[in-house]
Protein backbone atom coordinates (compact mmCIF):
# COMPACT_ATOMS: atom_id res chain seq x y z
CA UNK A 1 0.00 0.00 0.00
CA UNK A 2 2.43 2.68 -1.18
CA UNK A 3 0.97 6.13 -0.53
CA UNK A 4 2.24 9.20 -2.25
CA UNK A 5 1.46 12.80 -1.55
CA UNK A 6 1.56 14.83 -4.76
CA UNK A 7 0.57 18.29 -5.93
CA UNK A 8 -2.20 19.14 -8.36
CA UNK A 9 -0.20 21.35 -10.71
CA UNK A 10 -2.68 22.38 -13.37
CA UNK A 11 -6.37 22.03 -14.07
CA UNK A 12 -7.70 21.58 -17.62
CA UNK A 13 -11.26 21.75 -18.90
CA UNK A 14 -11.83 18.87 -21.32
CA UNK A 15 -15.36 19.18 -22.66
CA UNK A 16 -17.68 18.77 -19.72
CA UNK A 17 -14.99 17.19 -17.55
CA UNK A 18 -12.21 18.69 -15.52
CA UNK A 19 -8.82 17.01 -15.71
CA UNK A 20 -5.64 17.72 -13.83
CA UNK A 21 -1.89 17.39 -14.09
CA UNK A 22 -0.57 15.82 -10.92
CA UNK A 23 3.07 15.98 -10.10
CA UNK A 24 3.70 12.19 -9.97
CA UNK A 25 6.78 10.00 -10.70
CA UNK A 26 6.32 8.28 -14.08
CA UNK A 27 6.27 4.86 -12.46
CA UNK A 28 3.02 5.88 -10.75
CA UNK A 29 1.30 6.84 -13.98
CA UNK A 30 -1.72 4.63 -14.60
CA UNK A 31 -1.97 3.07 -18.08
CA UNK A 32 -5.00 3.64 -20.33
CA UNK A 33 -8.01 2.11 -18.57
CA UNK A 34 -6.29 1.85 -15.18
CA UNK A 35 -7.04 4.27 -12.36
CA UNK A 36 -5.29 6.03 -9.54
CA UNK A 37 -7.24 6.26 -6.24
CA UNK A 38 -6.73 9.83 -5.03
CA UNK A 39 -7.94 11.90 -2.13
CA UNK A 40 -7.44 15.58 -1.56
CA UNK A 41 -5.71 16.21 1.76
CA UNK A 42 -7.69 18.40 4.16
CA UNK A 43 -10.88 18.12 2.18
CA UNK A 44 -13.25 15.46 0.87
CA UNK A 45 -13.69 14.44 4.47
CA UNK A 46 -16.25 11.74 3.75
CA UNK A 47 -13.25 9.42 3.54
CA UNK A 48 -13.78 8.26 -0.03
CA UNK A 49 -11.07 8.26 -2.65
CA UNK A 50 -11.78 9.46 -6.19
CA UNK A 51 -10.58 7.12 -8.94
CA UNK A 52 -8.74 9.20 -11.54
CA UNK A 53 -8.22 7.82 -15.06
CA UNK A 54 -5.70 8.90 -17.68
CA UNK A 55 -7.43 11.19 -20.16
CA UNK A 56 -6.44 12.79 -23.44
CA UNK A 57 -3.30 14.96 -23.46
CA UNK A 58 -0.16 15.74 -25.41
CA UNK A 59 3.09 13.75 -25.23
CA UNK A 60 4.99 13.43 -21.94
CA UNK A 61 2.14 14.86 -19.97
CA UNK A 62 -0.39 12.83 -18.07
CA UNK A 63 -3.74 14.36 -17.35
CA UNK A 64 -6.05 12.51 -14.97
CA UNK A 65 -9.82 12.88 -14.77
CA UNK A 66 -12.47 13.49 -13.93
CA UNK A 67 -11.49 15.75 -11.04
CA UNK A 68 -14.11 16.77 -8.47
CA UNK A 69 -15.13 20.38 -9.13
CA UNK A 70 -13.77 21.57 -5.79
CA UNK A 71 -10.15 20.63 -6.43
CA UNK A 72 -7.85 23.58 -7.13
CA UNK A 73 -4.31 23.91 -8.50
CA UNK A 74 -1.89 23.75 -5.58
CA UNK A 75 -3.99 21.26 -3.63
CA UNK A 76 -2.13 18.33 -2.13
CA UNK A 77 -3.46 14.96 -3.09
CA UNK A 78 -2.78 11.57 -1.49
CA UNK A 79 -2.48 8.85 -4.14
CA UNK A 80 -2.40 5.07 -3.84
CA UNK A 81 -0.68 2.96 -6.49
CA UNK A 82 -2.31 2.66 -9.96
CA UNK A 83 -4.91 -0.04 -9.84
CA UNK A 84 -6.96 -2.38 -12.01
CA UNK A 85 -6.68 -3.94 -15.42
CA UNK A 86 -6.34 -1.46 -18.27
CA UNK A 87 -6.67 -1.89 -22.01
CA UNK A 88 -4.21 -4.14 -23.83
CA UNK A 89 -3.99 -3.01 -27.42
CA UNK A 90 -2.46 -5.96 -29.34
CA UNK A 91 0.67 -4.94 -31.30
CA UNK A 92 -0.64 -6.59 -34.46
CA UNK A 93 -3.87 -4.64 -34.94
CA UNK A 94 -4.27 -2.34 -37.93
CA UNK A 95 -7.80 -0.97 -37.54
CA UNK A 96 -8.67 0.31 -34.06
CA UNK A 97 -12.22 1.33 -33.20
CA UNK A 98 -12.98 3.41 -30.11
CA UNK A 99 -16.56 3.46 -28.80
CA UNK A 100 -17.29 5.89 -25.95
CA UNK A 101 -20.94 4.99 -25.34
CA UNK A 102 -22.86 7.67 -23.52
CA UNK A 103 -19.66 8.90 -21.85
CA UNK A 104 -17.01 11.44 -22.74
CA UNK A 105 -14.37 10.19 -25.22
CA UNK A 106 -11.53 11.37 -22.96
CA UNK A 107 -10.57 8.03 -21.42
CA UNK A 108 -10.54 6.15 -24.76
CA UNK A 109 -8.56 8.84 -26.54
CA UNK A 110 -5.54 7.85 -24.45
CA UNK A 111 -5.29 4.80 -26.77
CA UNK A 112 -4.74 7.02 -29.83
CA UNK A 113 -0.96 7.59 -29.47
CA UNK A 114 -0.22 3.85 -29.20
CA UNK A 115 -2.59 3.05 -32.08
CA UNK A 116 -1.03 5.62 -34.38
CA UNK A 117 2.47 4.62 -33.28
CA UNK A 118 1.88 1.13 -34.59
CA UNK A 119 0.58 2.52 -37.87
CA UNK A 120 -3.04 1.53 -37.19
CA UNK A 121 -6.03 3.45 -38.52
CA UNK A 122 -8.00 4.78 -35.56
CA UNK A 123 -11.72 5.58 -35.73
CA UNK A 124 -13.86 7.03 -32.99
CA UNK A 125 -17.51 5.94 -33.19
CA UNK A 126 -19.94 8.20 -31.40
CA UNK A 127 -23.29 9.92 -31.84
CA UNK A 128 -22.58 12.61 -29.27
CA UNK A 129 -20.97 15.79 -30.50
CA UNK A 130 -17.34 16.12 -29.42
CA UNK A 131 -16.66 19.42 -27.67
CA UNK A 132 -14.43 21.86 -29.63
CA UNK A 133 -11.69 21.92 -27.01
CA UNK A 134 -11.42 18.13 -27.00
CA UNK A 135 -11.52 17.95 -30.80
CA UNK A 136 -8.63 20.40 -31.00
CA UNK A 137 -6.46 17.91 -29.11
CA UNK A 138 -7.35 14.86 -31.23
CA UNK A 139 -4.74 14.11 -33.93
CA UNK A 140 -6.18 14.72 -37.42
CA UNK A 141 -5.50 11.10 -38.45
CA UNK A 142 -8.34 9.95 -36.19
CA UNK A 143 -11.57 9.56 -38.11
CA UNK A 144 -14.78 10.42 -36.28
CA UNK A 145 -17.84 8.46 -37.37
CA UNK A 146 -21.40 7.89 -36.19
CA UNK A 147 -22.19 4.66 -34.37
CA UNK A 148 -24.29 3.58 -37.34
CA UNK A 149 -21.07 3.20 -39.33
CA UNK A 150 -19.92 0.53 -36.90
CA UNK A 151 -23.30 -1.20 -36.77
CA UNK A 152 -23.35 -1.34 -40.59
CA UNK A 153 -19.80 -2.50 -40.96
CA UNK A 154 -18.98 -4.45 -37.79
CA UNK A 155 -16.23 -6.29 -39.68
CA UNK A 156 -14.05 -3.21 -40.20
CA UNK A 157 -12.10 -2.98 -36.90
CA UNK A 158 -9.70 -5.67 -35.79
CA UNK A 159 -9.71 -4.23 -32.24
CA UNK A 160 -12.46 -2.40 -30.43
CA UNK A 161 -12.29 -0.53 -27.14
CA UNK A 162 -15.58 0.43 -25.50
CA UNK A 163 -16.18 2.79 -22.58
CA UNK A 164 -19.62 2.65 -20.99
CA UNK A 165 -21.34 3.41 -17.70
CA UNK A 166 -22.58 0.29 -15.93
CA UNK A 167 -26.12 1.67 -16.08
CA UNK A 168 -25.78 2.03 -19.86
CA UNK A 169 -24.62 -1.53 -20.60
CA UNK A 170 -28.04 -2.90 -21.52
CA UNK A 171 -28.88 -0.06 -23.90
CA UNK A 172 -25.43 -0.37 -25.40
CA UNK A 173 -25.96 -4.05 -26.08
CA UNK A 174 -29.39 -3.43 -27.58
CA UNK A 175 -28.28 -0.57 -29.80
CA UNK A 176 -24.85 -1.65 -30.93
CA UNK A 177 -25.29 -5.44 -31.07
CA UNK A 178 -21.71 -6.18 -30.01
CA UNK A 179 -22.30 -9.95 -30.36
CA UNK A 180 -22.02 -9.35 -34.15
CA UNK A 181 -18.40 -8.24 -33.70
CA UNK A 182 -15.81 -10.79 -34.60
CA UNK A 183 -12.68 -8.88 -33.56
CA UNK A 184 -10.99 -8.65 -30.20
CA UNK A 185 -12.89 -6.21 -28.03
CA UNK A 186 -12.49 -4.80 -24.52
CA UNK A 187 -14.84 -2.73 -22.42
CA UNK A 188 -14.12 -0.26 -19.64
CA UNK A 189 -17.06 -0.41 -17.26
CA UNK A 190 -17.43 2.88 -15.47
CA UNK A 191 -19.15 2.70 -12.08
CA UNK A 192 -18.67 4.09 -8.58
CA UNK A 193 -15.93 2.26 -6.66
CA UNK A 194 -16.33 3.50 -3.10
CA UNK A 195 -14.01 1.01 -1.41
CA UNK A 196 -11.62 0.57 -4.39
CA UNK A 197 -11.39 -3.09 -3.38
CA UNK A 198 -10.29 -2.51 0.22
CA UNK A 199 -13.60 -3.71 1.63
CA UNK A 200 -14.97 -6.01 -1.07
CA UNK A 201 -18.13 -3.97 -0.64
CA UNK A 202 -19.62 -5.20 -3.90
CA UNK A 203 -21.10 -1.88 -4.99
CA UNK A 204 -19.04 -2.03 -8.18
CA UNK A 205 -20.07 -5.60 -9.01
CA UNK A 206 -20.87 -6.73 -12.56
CA UNK A 207 -22.17 -10.10 -13.64
CA UNK A 208 -19.84 -11.86 -16.03
CA UNK A 209 -19.80 -15.24 -17.74
CA UNK A 210 -17.65 -16.42 -14.85
CA UNK A 211 -19.93 -15.08 -12.13
CA UNK A 212 -19.90 -11.82 -10.23
CA UNK A 213 -16.77 -9.74 -10.66
CA UNK A 214 -15.68 -6.45 -9.07
CA UNK A 215 -14.88 -3.57 -11.41
CA UNK A 216 -12.41 -2.07 -8.90
CA UNK A 217 -10.20 -5.17 -8.81
CA UNK A 218 -11.10 -7.43 -11.75
CA UNK A 219 -11.65 -4.49 -14.15
CA UNK A 220 -12.30 -1.69 -14.92
CA UNK A 221 -11.48 -3.17 -18.37
CA UNK A 222 -12.96 -6.58 -19.20
CA UNK A 223 -12.91 -8.71 -22.33
CA UNK A 224 -16.19 -7.68 -23.94
CA UNK A 225 -17.29 -11.28 -24.40
CA UNK A 226 -17.13 -11.85 -20.64
CA UNK A 227 -19.90 -9.36 -19.94
CA UNK A 228 -21.85 -8.91 -23.12
CA UNK A 229 -24.44 -11.61 -22.59
CA UNK A 230 -24.94 -11.37 -18.83
CA UNK A 231 -24.01 -7.90 -17.71
CA UNK A 232 -26.59 -5.83 -15.89
Amino acid at each position, binding site marked *: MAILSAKLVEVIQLGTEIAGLIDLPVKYWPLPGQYLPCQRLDGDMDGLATPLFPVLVGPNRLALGALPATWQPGDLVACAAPQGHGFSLPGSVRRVGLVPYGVSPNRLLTLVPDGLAQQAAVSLFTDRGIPEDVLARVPSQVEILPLAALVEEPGWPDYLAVDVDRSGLTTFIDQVAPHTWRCEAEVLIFT*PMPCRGVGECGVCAVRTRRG*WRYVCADGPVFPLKEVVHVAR
Partner: protein
Amino acid sequence: MWLDEERPVLKRELLLDKPFVNASGTLGFAPEPRLAPALRGLGAFITNPISRAPRVPAANRAVIPFLGGFLLHSGYPNPGITRVISHFRQRWAAAPLPVIVHLLVETPADIAEMLPKLEGLENILAVELGLPPDCHPDLLAALFEAGYGELPLVPCVSPEQVPVLLGVLTGLGPAAVHLVEPRGALPGGDGEIIPGRLYGPAIFPVMLRAARVLVTAGLRVIANGGVTARWQVDALLETGVLAVGLGSALWGIDQGMRLLSAEP
Protein backbone atom coordinates in the same frame (compact mmCIF):
# COMPACT_ATOMS: atom_id res chain seq x y z
CA MET B 1 -1.37 -16.69 16.29
CA TRP B 2 -3.16 -14.71 18.86
CA LEU B 3 -4.39 -17.18 21.48
CA ASP B 4 -1.47 -18.20 23.62
CA GLU B 5 -0.82 -19.74 27.01
CA GLU B 6 0.02 -16.43 28.69
CA ARG B 7 -3.25 -14.78 27.88
CA PRO B 8 -6.33 -15.41 30.00
CA VAL B 9 -9.19 -16.49 27.76
CA LEU B 10 -12.27 -14.93 29.27
CA LYS B 11 -15.45 -16.32 27.84
CA ARG B 12 -18.29 -13.80 27.40
CA GLU B 13 -15.97 -10.92 27.87
CA LEU B 14 -14.30 -8.99 25.15
CA LEU B 15 -10.70 -7.95 25.63
CA LEU B 16 -9.20 -5.71 22.97
CA ASP B 17 -5.60 -4.66 23.29
CA LYS B 18 -6.14 -1.62 21.07
CA PRO B 19 -9.21 0.63 21.15
CA PHE B 20 -10.02 0.29 17.44
CA VAL B 21 -11.89 -2.14 15.24
CA ASN B 22 -13.05 -1.87 11.64
CA ALA B 23 -16.76 -1.62 10.83
CA SER B 24 -18.13 -4.78 9.26
CA GLY B 25 -18.01 -4.42 5.50
CA THR B 26 -14.98 -2.16 5.35
CA LEU B 27 -12.00 -4.53 5.12
CA GLY B 28 -13.37 -7.70 3.49
CA PHE B 29 -13.66 -11.23 4.86
CA ALA B 30 -10.19 -11.84 6.29
CA PRO B 31 -7.18 -9.89 7.53
CA GLU B 32 -5.16 -10.25 4.31
CA PRO B 33 -1.48 -9.28 4.22
CA ARG B 34 -2.27 -6.32 1.93
CA LEU B 35 -4.16 -4.77 4.87
CA ALA B 36 -1.17 -5.08 7.22
CA PRO B 37 -0.66 -1.37 7.96
CA ALA B 38 -4.28 -0.98 9.03
CA LEU B 39 -4.34 -4.25 10.94
CA ARG B 40 -1.45 -3.13 13.15
CA GLY B 41 -3.72 -0.45 14.60
CA LEU B 42 -6.76 -2.63 15.26
CA GLY B 43 -7.67 -4.56 18.41
CA ALA B 44 -9.75 -7.01 16.37
CA PHE B 45 -10.70 -7.62 12.74
CA ILE B 46 -14.42 -7.74 11.94
CA THR B 47 -15.42 -9.68 8.83
CA ASN B 48 -17.81 -8.56 6.13
CA PRO B 49 -21.42 -9.64 6.81
CA ILE B 50 -21.94 -13.36 6.22
CA SER B 51 -25.35 -14.95 5.63
CA ARG B 52 -26.61 -18.52 5.86
CA ALA B 53 -27.08 -18.77 2.08
CA PRO B 54 -25.09 -16.92 -0.59
CA ARG B 55 -26.24 -13.38 -1.40
CA VAL B 56 -25.67 -11.59 -4.69
CA PRO B 57 -25.17 -7.83 -5.03
CA ALA B 58 -28.39 -5.80 -4.84
CA ALA B 59 -29.85 -4.99 -8.25
CA ASN B 60 -29.97 -1.30 -7.25
CA ARG B 61 -26.57 -1.26 -5.57
CA ALA B 62 -25.30 2.28 -5.20
CA VAL B 63 -23.17 4.77 -3.36
CA ILE B 64 -24.88 8.18 -3.07
CA PRO B 65 -22.95 11.11 -1.63
CA PHE B 66 -24.61 13.78 0.49
CA LEU B 67 -23.23 16.74 2.41
CA GLY B 68 -20.97 15.22 5.07
CA GLY B 69 -21.17 11.58 4.03
CA PHE B 70 -22.55 8.96 1.70
CA LEU B 71 -25.20 6.28 1.58
CA LEU B 72 -24.08 2.78 0.67
CA HIS B 73 -26.36 0.04 -0.58
CA SER B 74 -24.63 -3.16 -1.55
CA GLY B 75 -26.92 -6.07 -0.79
CA TYR B 76 -24.21 -7.52 1.48
CA PRO B 77 -22.98 -9.92 -1.21
CA ASN B 78 -21.24 -12.93 0.23
CA PRO B 79 -20.82 -16.59 -0.71
CA GLY B 80 -22.69 -17.87 2.37
CA ILE B 81 -21.32 -19.19 5.64
CA THR B 82 -20.18 -22.59 4.41
CA ARG B 83 -18.06 -21.27 1.56
CA VAL B 84 -16.75 -18.37 3.62
CA ILE B 85 -15.48 -20.75 6.31
CA SER B 86 -13.81 -23.16 3.93
CA HIS B 87 -12.18 -20.26 2.11
CA PHE B 88 -11.07 -18.12 5.06
CA ARG B 89 -10.66 -20.32 8.19
CA GLN B 90 -6.93 -20.71 7.64
CA ARG B 91 -6.45 -17.01 7.17
CA TRP B 92 -8.48 -16.26 10.30
CA ALA B 93 -6.37 -18.74 12.29
CA ALA B 94 -3.10 -17.30 11.03
CA ALA B 95 -4.10 -13.67 11.48
CA PRO B 96 -1.96 -11.30 13.55
CA LEU B 97 -5.06 -10.15 15.48
CA PRO B 98 -8.26 -11.78 16.74
CA VAL B 99 -11.23 -12.07 14.40
CA ILE B 100 -14.87 -11.17 15.07
CA VAL B 101 -17.19 -12.89 12.60
CA HIS B 102 -20.21 -10.82 11.52
CA LEU B 103 -23.31 -12.90 10.84
CA LEU B 104 -26.47 -11.62 9.15
CA VAL B 105 -29.29 -13.15 11.14
CA GLU B 106 -33.01 -12.94 10.67
CA THR B 107 -34.30 -15.90 12.67
CA PRO B 108 -33.13 -18.05 15.56
CA ALA B 109 -32.81 -20.87 13.03
CA ASP B 110 -30.18 -18.86 11.13
CA ILE B 111 -28.00 -18.53 14.17
CA ALA B 112 -28.60 -22.10 15.33
CA GLU B 113 -27.34 -23.30 11.97
CA MET B 114 -24.45 -20.89 11.55
CA LEU B 115 -22.92 -20.73 15.02
CA PRO B 116 -21.88 -24.39 15.37
CA LYS B 117 -19.90 -24.08 12.14
CA LEU B 118 -17.78 -21.39 13.80
CA GLU B 119 -17.20 -23.04 17.17
CA GLY B 120 -13.84 -24.75 17.32
CA LEU B 121 -12.30 -22.52 14.67
CA GLU B 122 -9.12 -20.87 15.83
CA ASN B 123 -8.65 -17.21 16.69
CA ILE B 124 -12.33 -16.25 16.71
CA LEU B 125 -12.85 -13.73 19.49
CA ALA B 126 -16.59 -13.26 19.13
CA VAL B 127 -19.56 -13.39 16.79
CA GLU B 128 -21.33 -10.21 15.79
CA LEU B 129 -25.01 -10.31 14.95
CA GLY B 130 -26.30 -8.11 12.12
CA LEU B 131 -29.98 -7.58 12.87
CA PRO B 132 -32.94 -6.74 10.65
CA PRO B 133 -33.96 -3.06 10.86
CA ASP B 134 -37.31 -3.83 12.51
CA CYS B 135 -35.81 -6.30 15.03
CA HIS B 136 -38.25 -6.74 17.92
CA PRO B 137 -36.90 -7.19 21.48
CA ASP B 138 -38.36 -10.71 21.54
CA LEU B 139 -36.47 -11.61 18.38
CA LEU B 140 -33.21 -10.40 19.89
CA ALA B 141 -33.84 -12.44 23.03
CA ALA B 142 -34.64 -15.51 20.90
CA LEU B 143 -31.46 -15.01 18.89
CA PHE B 144 -29.41 -14.97 22.08
CA GLU B 145 -31.21 -18.06 23.31
CA ALA B 146 -30.41 -19.86 20.07
CA GLY B 147 -26.84 -18.56 20.06
CA TYR B 148 -25.85 -19.48 23.59
CA GLY B 149 -22.55 -21.35 23.43
CA GLU B 150 -18.79 -20.94 23.41
CA LEU B 151 -18.51 -17.68 21.57
CA PRO B 152 -19.48 -14.28 22.99
CA LEU B 153 -22.26 -12.66 20.99
CA VAL B 154 -22.06 -8.99 20.05
CA PRO B 155 -25.36 -7.60 18.72
CA CYS B 156 -25.08 -4.71 16.26
CA VAL B 157 -27.61 -1.95 16.74
CA SER B 158 -28.01 1.27 14.84
CA PRO B 159 -29.00 4.49 16.65
CA GLU B 160 -32.67 4.24 15.63
CA GLN B 161 -32.78 0.76 17.19
CA VAL B 162 -31.38 1.86 20.55
CA PRO B 163 -34.65 3.02 22.14
CA VAL B 164 -36.46 -0.19 21.15
CA LEU B 165 -33.73 -2.63 22.14
CA LEU B 166 -32.15 -0.92 25.15
CA GLY B 167 -34.29 -2.76 27.68
CA VAL B 168 -33.67 -6.24 26.34
CA LEU B 169 -29.97 -5.49 25.83
CA THR B 170 -29.40 -4.56 29.44
CA GLY B 171 -31.25 -7.73 30.42
CA LEU B 172 -29.15 -9.96 28.18
CA GLY B 173 -25.86 -8.40 29.27
CA PRO B 174 -23.92 -9.21 26.09
CA ALA B 175 -20.09 -9.25 25.99
CA ALA B 176 -20.46 -5.99 24.09
CA VAL B 177 -22.89 -4.09 21.90
CA HIS B 178 -21.64 -2.72 18.59
CA LEU B 179 -23.25 0.59 17.68
CA VAL B 180 -23.32 0.69 13.88
CA GLU B 181 -24.25 3.24 11.23
CA PRO B 182 -27.84 4.53 10.96
CA ARG B 183 -30.03 3.58 8.02
CA GLY B 184 -31.22 6.21 5.62
CA ALA B 185 -32.61 6.68 2.13
CA LEU B 186 -31.79 8.93 -0.82
CA PRO B 187 -32.99 9.23 -4.40
CA GLY B 188 -30.63 7.46 -6.80
CA GLY B 189 -29.68 8.66 -10.26
CA ASP B 190 -33.03 7.73 -11.78
CA GLY B 191 -35.12 9.03 -8.88
CA GLU B 192 -35.72 5.64 -7.30
CA ILE B 193 -35.39 5.91 -3.52
CA ILE B 194 -32.45 3.76 -2.40
CA PRO B 195 -32.21 2.55 1.21
CA GLY B 196 -28.84 2.00 2.81
CA ARG B 197 -26.39 2.67 5.61
CA LEU B 198 -24.98 6.17 6.12
CA TYR B 199 -21.25 6.78 6.49
CA GLY B 200 -19.09 9.83 7.02
CA PRO B 201 -18.74 12.62 9.58
CA ALA B 202 -22.37 13.73 9.11
CA ILE B 203 -23.48 10.87 11.37
CA PHE B 204 -21.09 11.60 14.24
CA PRO B 205 -23.43 13.64 16.51
CA VAL B 206 -26.13 10.96 16.30
CA MET B 207 -23.61 8.22 17.04
CA LEU B 208 -22.04 10.06 19.99
CA ARG B 209 -25.46 10.57 21.57
CA ALA B 210 -26.46 6.92 21.05
CA ALA B 211 -23.12 5.74 22.44
CA ARG B 212 -23.76 7.78 25.59
CA VAL B 213 -27.20 6.27 26.01
CA LEU B 214 -25.77 2.73 25.73
CA VAL B 215 -22.82 3.39 28.05
CA THR B 216 -25.05 5.09 30.60
CA ALA B 217 -27.25 1.98 30.61
CA GLY B 218 -24.21 0.00 31.78
CA LEU B 219 -23.44 -1.75 28.50
CA ARG B 220 -19.99 -2.40 27.09
CA VAL B 221 -19.96 -0.59 23.78
CA ILE B 222 -18.00 -0.62 20.55
CA ALA B 223 -19.05 2.44 18.57
CA ASN B 224 -18.74 3.37 14.94
CA GLY B 225 -19.18 7.05 14.42
CA GLY B 226 -18.36 8.35 10.95
CA VAL B 227 -15.03 9.10 12.58
CA THR B 228 -12.48 10.96 10.45
CA ALA B 229 -10.63 12.99 13.10
CA ARG B 230 -8.86 12.31 16.36
CA TRP B 231 -11.14 14.56 18.46
CA GLN B 232 -14.03 12.29 17.52
CA VAL B 233 -12.12 9.22 18.71
CA ASP B 234 -11.38 11.04 21.97
CA ALA B 235 -15.00 12.11 22.50
CA LEU B 236 -16.18 8.50 22.07
CA LEU B 237 -13.47 7.05 24.32
CA GLU B 238 -14.16 9.65 27.02
CA THR B 239 -17.81 8.66 26.82
CA GLY B 240 -16.66 5.23 27.93
CA VAL B 241 -16.75 3.02 24.85
CA LEU B 242 -14.39 0.00 24.72
CA ALA B 243 -13.36 0.69 21.17
CA VAL B 244 -14.09 2.90 18.18
CA GLY B 245 -15.11 1.31 14.87
CA LEU B 246 -13.63 2.91 11.79
CA GLY B 247 -15.77 2.86 8.69
CA SER B 248 -15.34 5.00 5.62
CA ALA B 249 -12.06 6.42 6.92
CA LEU B 250 -10.48 3.05 6.13
CA TRP B 251 -11.39 3.50 2.47
CA GLY B 252 -9.60 6.81 2.19
CA ILE B 253 -5.99 6.90 1.08
CA ASP B 254 -4.38 7.62 4.40
CA GLN B 255 -6.98 9.08 6.73
CA GLY B 256 -7.67 5.78 8.47
CA MET B 257 -3.96 5.17 8.88
CA ARG B 258 -3.43 8.56 10.47
CA LEU B 259 -6.17 7.81 13.00
CA LEU B 260 -4.81 4.36 13.78
CA SER B 261 -1.21 5.46 14.17
CA ALA B 262 -1.76 8.66 16.16
CA GLU B 263 -0.70 8.68 19.79
CA PRO B 264 -3.77 8.70 22.07
